[in-house]
């Protein structure tokens, strides 16, 4: 029943995203419309993939660091991506893919740095150190980015923040295809880690006694979640909230077992970002809202409702 409900929500969100938009497209012309084919449909699919990836990465990271506040942006990735993007603009790289590629490179750089700092004694990945390293790297890259932007003479740089604050207006079939080729591997790695993540929730020692290869699981989950987030940031900037709250919301509905939780988080995150992006496109047309505002406006009340229901039981 719950699964059916979730799938219906995803399907409705997808249908709404294709039917609604600031340009008027009669229902009869949906299949032939250029606006639908080259703009709405790829954007809807990208929103679903990005939302799903962020929520799945968030669920994995929360289990890994055993901290409910863990969020892909807490691990320094968005800071690194921002620095990469701003550098690309500052150096006048004008290739159409310069911004996403530079952001991706920046996110990977930050990931590598945080990972290295998180390795205690050169071998063991300590979750607490990982979070602290992530926050430190994030703060440092953000400071460098802001300094670059405010000291530069190029007004173009100020606009880099617009991109960084997230949005799906760069969606095209190319970016959808890119994510479809890239994302399955990290997604599969995360889904396959469901059982060891359940064990890890008991604590590292008990998990080890129950036969989990704790060190390898932690590494795999961290790298897969980071790679997934880096790709999401590269195609859509930093979209907050989805990776933090969707995993919690799904935990309230599906419980703490990761085998159902991880796929549910993927579908739930995809649906939330799809709905939010549709609202962002339509609500104040011809203007467009920032999708991060909408994810919070829709997501928080839903989350509070679930929280109330859960604490009432």
């Amino acid at each position: 029943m719950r699964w059916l409900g979730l799938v219906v929500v995803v399907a409705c969100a997808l249908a709404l995203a294709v039917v609604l938009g600031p340009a008027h497209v009669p229902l009869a012309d949906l299949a032939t419309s250029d606006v639908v084919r080259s703009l709405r449909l790829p954007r809807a699919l990208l929103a679903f993939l990005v939302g799903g990836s962020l929520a799945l990465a968030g669920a994995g990271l929360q289990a890994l660091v055993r901290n409910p506040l863990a969020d892909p942006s807490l691990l320094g990735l968005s800071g690194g991506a921002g620095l990469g993007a701003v550098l690309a603009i500052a150096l006048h790289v004008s290739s159409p893919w310069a911004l996403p590629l530079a952001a991706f490179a920046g996110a990977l750089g930050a990931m590598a740095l945080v990972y290295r700092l998180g390795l205690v004694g050169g071998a063991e990945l300590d979750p607490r150190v990982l979070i602290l390293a992530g926050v430190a790297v994030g703060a440092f890259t953000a400071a460098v980015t802001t300094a670059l932007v405010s000291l530069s003479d190029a007004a173009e740089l100020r606009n880099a923040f617009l991109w960084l604050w997230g949005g799906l207006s760069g969606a095209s079939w190319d970016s959808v295809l890119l994510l479809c080729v890239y994302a399955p591997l990290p997604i599969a790695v995360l889904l396959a880690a469901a059982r060891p993540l359940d064990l890890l929730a008991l604590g590292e020692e008990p998990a080890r006694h129950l036969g989990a290869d704790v060190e390898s699981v932690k590494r795999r989950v961290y790298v897969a979640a980071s790679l997934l987030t880096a790709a999401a940031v590269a195609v859509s900037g930093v979209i907050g909230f989805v990776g933090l709250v969707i995993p919690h919301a799904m935990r309230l509905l599906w419980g703490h077992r990761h085998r159902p939780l991880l796929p549910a988080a993927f579908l739930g995150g995809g649906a939330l970002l799809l709905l939010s992006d549709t609202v962002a496109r339509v609500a104040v047309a011809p203007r467009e809202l920032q999708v991060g505002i909408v994810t919070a406006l829709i997501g928080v009340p839903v989350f509070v409702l679930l929280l109330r229901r859960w604490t009432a039981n």
Partner: protein
Amino acid sequence: MPPSRISVIDDAGRPVALGQPARRIVSLSPAVTELLFALGAGDRLVGRTTWCDYPPAARQVPSVGDGLNPNIEAVIARRPDLVVLYRSALNETAATQLTRLGIPAVLVRQDRLEDIARAARLLGRLTGAERAGDSLGSELEQLTGSVRPDPEHRVRVVFVAWDNPPVVIGAGSYLDELAGLAGAANVFHDVGSASATVGLETIVARNPDVIVVLRDSATAEPPGFTRRPEWRAVRAVRDGRILYLTGSLFARPNPRAAEAVAEFRRRLEESTR
């Protein structure tokens, strides 16, 4: 005979009085710097912003940094007897601080051409160049009054200030005014603010004839977004009808507006031929 005092009301409604025409002026906006040179008072400029790049002689004047949220100490260090600021909430605080320190400060609105016309008259009075100020003021007013209503034949343009997310220029901007004067129509004239984030889909639906791209540096290369697949949905991008506006002539409303209009009109004709 008592000294003839100059007293004016600035665009924030603050009364400002000078004992004599200003001799040491700090201009905290590029448009004001241009205006002062146009009024023949360029040699009285003792401070400018980093962004003041026209006329070339302006670059010889020492810079005091940014014009928005200015560095008050750097301004005072130039020992000005008049400071001219762009009118904004932050700058009103700065103007109050300067006045408290005994330095007259005027806040000048400069978002539209009519603002520049009014500023020309105001600065003319403050520098003792009243006649030059009035003649430049009426010249600019004549220009703004010269829009011919022939909506049928107007080239429809969109001003793209940024591509991801798409940020376009609306009716609140000087560029919207410039388009009207050059015989074009901004397809986002219904957006009241100076600029706004809009959906790419809306740009496709409004189907402009020409894309006008604003850039602050002149490079030969077209901007990357014109090669992005999602932007190919816009007809003017597919047809390569893209026009670039760079440099100080188009960056802000300024006393060279007539030149800007003529240049924009010429470029529009070129790109739609």
